[in-house]
């Protein structure tokens, strides 16, 4: 059942949905990429308290389904919390979805959708 190579060979970018500090840091690490104009698409989204959930979901969909060049999607855990149903129902292998902690919200393994699956599988 190995995924066909075409499913991931073009995936060479990381994408991020996060608060300003997380995004800034990750961009400094050099993951930021803006595709060529005219449809300049960024691979990151800054979420603050004013961003509504619809925008987050839209970005989530764009990064997970529309774009084929993203291999890993990083999302702040507290933001994943806001669209939890979407994150939990996301099961595809590509792009890999990773919940990361943010500065103000330390990492809570209890909320992580993958870790929860791990726990469920082992009946813990």
């Amino acid at each position, binding site marked *: *059942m*190995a*995924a066909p*190579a075409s499913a*991931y*060979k073009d*995936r*060479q*970018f*990381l994408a991020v949905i996060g608060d*300003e*500090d*997380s*995004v*800034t*840091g*990750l*961009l*400094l*690490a*050099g*993951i*930021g*990429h*803006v595709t060529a104009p005219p449809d300049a698409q*960024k*691979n*990151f989204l*800054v979420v603050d308290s004013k961003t509504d959930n619809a925008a987050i979901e839209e970005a989530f969909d764009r990064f997970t389904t529309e774009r084929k060049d993203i*291999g*890993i999607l*990083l999302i702040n855990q507290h933001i994943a919390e806001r669209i939890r149903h979407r994150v939990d129902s996301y*099961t*595809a*292998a*590509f792009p*890999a*979805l*990773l919940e*990361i*902690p*943010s*500065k103000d919200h*330390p*990492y809570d*393994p209890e909320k*992580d959708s*993958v*870790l929860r*699956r*791990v726990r469920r*599988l*082992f009946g813990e």
Partner: protein
Amino acid sequence: MSGAGNREAVFPTRQSLGLMKSKLKGAQTGHDLLKRKSEALTKRFREITRRIDEAKRKMGRVMQIAAFSLAEVTYAVGGDIGYQVQESAKSARFRIRTKQENVSGVFLPAFESFTTEGNNDFGLTGLGKGGQQVQRCRETYARAVETLVELASLQTAFVILDEVIKVVNRRVNAIEHVIIPRTENTIKYINSELDELDREEFFRLKKVQNKKQRDNAQQDAEMLAKREAAAEQEKQESDKENAESTPDILGEQEDEDVIF
């Protein structure tokens, strides 16, 4: 499951019995192999889940350190560089590529990070002040992202293995609980049908034999009678001859009715 109806639609012939038997054998071998594969994968799977658990905790720490280095930048630059960084991002320096790893016939993709040379969107960030902190922060974050990439590989492996193990287990179960009983049923059915046929054949043979015997007996009896009749006739004829030899045909001797 093992109801009488649960069998394959075959004609109960010896040929299909042979087919079914080899099918059963195949199914059993397949079952063993798949079971072993599933065990190997599950072992791997457990290892990966353990590593995910560890890596997730490690990530917590690494990201904290990274966030702290960003705080240092804020301190040194004396302002917010967030917007500027977001706007000057153009082309990814930090990219990933995927390679494959073969675990019991399953290809697990693993991410590998690499940095492209030559493009540096943030080389001049913090030129006036704080450049060294920006630089340190970039390195810290690059290391953090490497950890994240590692974790992402594990997680992808986790998702794929999970899927594969489910499929394999489904197959194992299908073979164990559906295909094998069904084939066995079919064999049983063919056997019983064949037995039935055997018995029928036997009975038929017996009937035939009976009839043959009866016919034979009749024939024998007829033959016997014939032979007796012939003998009689012969006797009569010889008598007649005798009588002719003593010619007193119209005499005291009446004509006998000749029965043929």
